[in-house]
């Protein structure tokens, strides 16, 4: 759980802009004559032109629908060139972007969700659109698959957990709790990019907003460890956890993922460790923080390894340092395995048994990795 959930999306737009073009979402005074008028409604998205010259492209957007909408210029693979979110019913907005020659789509997304209604946009002249390094496309595709695999792998584990809760078996539920979270923890930044799922499944009691009902893993964690009993409400909440996570599983493949968002996501996973796990706040009743910790580090490492071929070429000193610090942190975590011989197990020492000095050592190791990891995104975009 974390407070800021939009980084992946924001980074996606930034990455697209930097990779191929310079986008600008500020209002512009462009002449009407040069602009493409975009009339968005609840079911339609009309554009006044399908072909424009490369360079400064202006969209004069009007929302004639009943819902707030979002208008984007996107690449065929859905990477965003430029976008404007939250254009209210009856309002107008001017969006400008520097667009190179190539094929694009203009997408209107009424209600700001889904694929939206789309129109082709052909940008001519001025050479062809800059192509992204194919290795980065490959990295994104593999990471997308990883995120999907994690969601797919989580559901059976969560169902084991939920069945134990529904059977009223406290001991079995406790045993299944921590591992049911692993896939989520490994890909948390992607999962959190769907702003609505995280508050349902991974919110902690102190993160609740006024009027928000507490649901998800941590609500059940408290029932199991603090209250030590399972009632009708807990059983109902367990079922809801499965439903909400199935929603995640269904949507994860559509997440906006870019090389930059992957790199930033890796850093954010370390931020999660630094703010939630090292302090013992994440699993404050179960004290299984080290399992989440391990999941976060594994997810960060996956994103890093996929980006490493490009990053190593641009900044070999950085990747050498990252290799070293990933290894150091993993070695340190190994010390907390309950069975030190089994490096595949997710059985870790209960975090309430980890002393102040040991937590400091873990925190130092997290800082040692997170600081160079914060430079990975730049090493991926810079040529």
């Amino acid at each position, binding site marked *: 759980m974390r407070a800021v959930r939009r980084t992946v999306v924001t980074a996606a737009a*930034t*990455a697209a802009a*930097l990779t191929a073009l310079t986008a600008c979402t500020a209002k512009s005074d462009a002449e009407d004559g040069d602009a493409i008028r975009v009339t968005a409604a609840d079911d339609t998205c009309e554009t006044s032109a399908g072909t424009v010259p490369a360079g400064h492209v202006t969209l004069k957007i009007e929302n004639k629908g009943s819902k707030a909408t979002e208008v984007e210029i996107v690449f065929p693979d859905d990477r965003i060139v430029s976008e404007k979110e939250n254009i209210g019913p009856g309002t107008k907005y001017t969006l400008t972007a520097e667009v190179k020659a190539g094929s694009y789509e203009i997408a209107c997304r009424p209600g700001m969700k889904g694929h939206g209604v789309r129109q082709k946009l052909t940008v001519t002249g001025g050479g062809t659109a800059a192509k992204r390094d194919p290795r980065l496309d490959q990295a994104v595709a593999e990471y997308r698959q990883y995120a999907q695999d994690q969601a797919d792998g989580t559901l059976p584990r969560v169902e084991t957990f939920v069945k134990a809760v529904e059977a009223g078996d406290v001991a079995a539920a406790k045993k299944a709790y921590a591992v049911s979270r692993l896939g989520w923890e490994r890909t948390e930044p992607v999962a959190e990019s769907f702003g609505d799922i995280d508050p349902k499944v991974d919110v902690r009691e102190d993160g609740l907003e006024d009027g928000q009902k507490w649901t998800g893993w941590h609500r059940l964690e408290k029932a199991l460890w603090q209250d030590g009993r399972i009632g009708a409400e807990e059983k109902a909440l367990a079922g809801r956890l499965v439903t909400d996570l199935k929603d995640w599983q269904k949507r994860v493949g559509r997440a906006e993922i870019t090389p*930059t968002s992957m*790199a930033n996501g890796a850093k954010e996973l370390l931020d999660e460790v630094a703010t939630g796990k090292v302090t013992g706040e994440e699993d404050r009743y179960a004290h299984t923080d080290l399992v989440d910790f391990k999941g976060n580090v594994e997810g960060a490492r996956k994103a890093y390894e996929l980006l490493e071929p490009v990053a190593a070429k641009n900044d070999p000193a950085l990747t050498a*340092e990252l290799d070293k*610090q990933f290894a150091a942190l993993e070695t340190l975590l190994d010390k907390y395995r309950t069975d030190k011989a089994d490096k595949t197990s997710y059985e870790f020492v209960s975090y309430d048994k980890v002393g*102040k*000095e040991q937590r*400091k050592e873990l925190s*130092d190791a997290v*800082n*040692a*990795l*997170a*600081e*160079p990891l*914060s*430079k990975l*995104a*730049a090493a*991926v*975009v*810079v040529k």
Partner: protein
Amino acid sequence: MTETDQIQEPGGARAGATPSRRAVLGWGGAGLALGAAAAGGAVAVATGGDERAAGQAAGGAVEFHGAHQAGIATPVQDRLHFAAFDVRTGDRAEFVRLLKDWTAAARRMTAGKAVGDGAYGGLAEAPPDDTGEALGLPPSRLTLTIGFGPSLFGKFGLAGNRPAALADLPKFPGDNLDASRSGGDLCVQACADDPQVAVHAIRNLARIGFGKVAIRWSQLGFGKTSSTTPGSQTPRNLFGFKDGTRNIAGTETGRLERFVWVGEGDGGPDDAWMAGGSYLVARRIRMNIETWDRTSLQEQEDVFGRDKGEGAPAGKAKEHDEPFLKAMKPDAHVRLAHPDANGGITVLRRGYSFTDGTDGLGRLDAGLFFLAYQRDVREGFIPLQRRLAAHDALNEYIQHVGSAVFAIPPGVRDENDWWGRTLLSEEA
């Protein structure tokens, strides 16, 4: 909390007027020109008068380079952020690289410049080199002073280079030391007239150090409790008393050489790297503020051996009157700490008051962060504190809760030099 003769010197020689950070940033090359002016210009400043007037405007820069590190005999600034670090790397070359990186950053920050490529204007995808909170602030007389703790000499094959003068402190009666607020392989003392400038400096050095070193503990201080500038107002400690009236002044070259700076011949050949350096003792001294405040004025004045208003020694009229020690109670703080009562022992004090909020029982977590520089810990703080710990009437109201000792290497000579070179350079 020792009362010693203190060396006083306006330290104006180090200081040159330098424009604000903003100005330096804006002008680009101007920083270089001014750096040169500061180094060569060595403005002689009249003794006497207020520290700020003596040094220059409070916002100016203090020269980073010199035979001795700044932040010892240079005029005492208003604020402190002191940090102790543990070394995490086992790689000597990496440690040396860090010291060089730190030196470069310190050189820039003390001149009022941002670290590295600055705080903005770089790649949107990368975090900026500088954290940015000191942008637009003047240099604020920032000094950064590095030190090496005894535990550092257990690493990197340095065991033979540990000076005997860097002695471990014995346990003194009444000590209640918290290990997590004590010791450290390294320290950096950041002093500035603006707390944000001091904090910015430690924050950025810590950031550069991640993976190589980790902060072990740190302490913020305010309200300097000592002065190295004669004639300036003697600061008061949190007990409300003037203390350190007769600190060594930055102008007292002779006494600095005798009591503060390590000489060429001190120690053996293995200690030669310390020539021009000093030794620092840092003690976090908690004051029992509430019980002190309930103490009668007579008792308070007896405990210190001074009057509260003027700060005059017992039986005298003026603060700077020569104390007549026998007029004081035998356990009075000034009497016990005075050089005349200690075979001439003298240290240069540079402490700050601190208040770290309250302690959970509704009492101020406050006191004195005592910093003392000396030529040899065995001939400075240790004998002095033995005496104070055994007899000082003040002990009823204070407790030493943190402790550390550091070897302070000599100054960074020029643009090519770096912190710790005399100890760690393979070529030296």
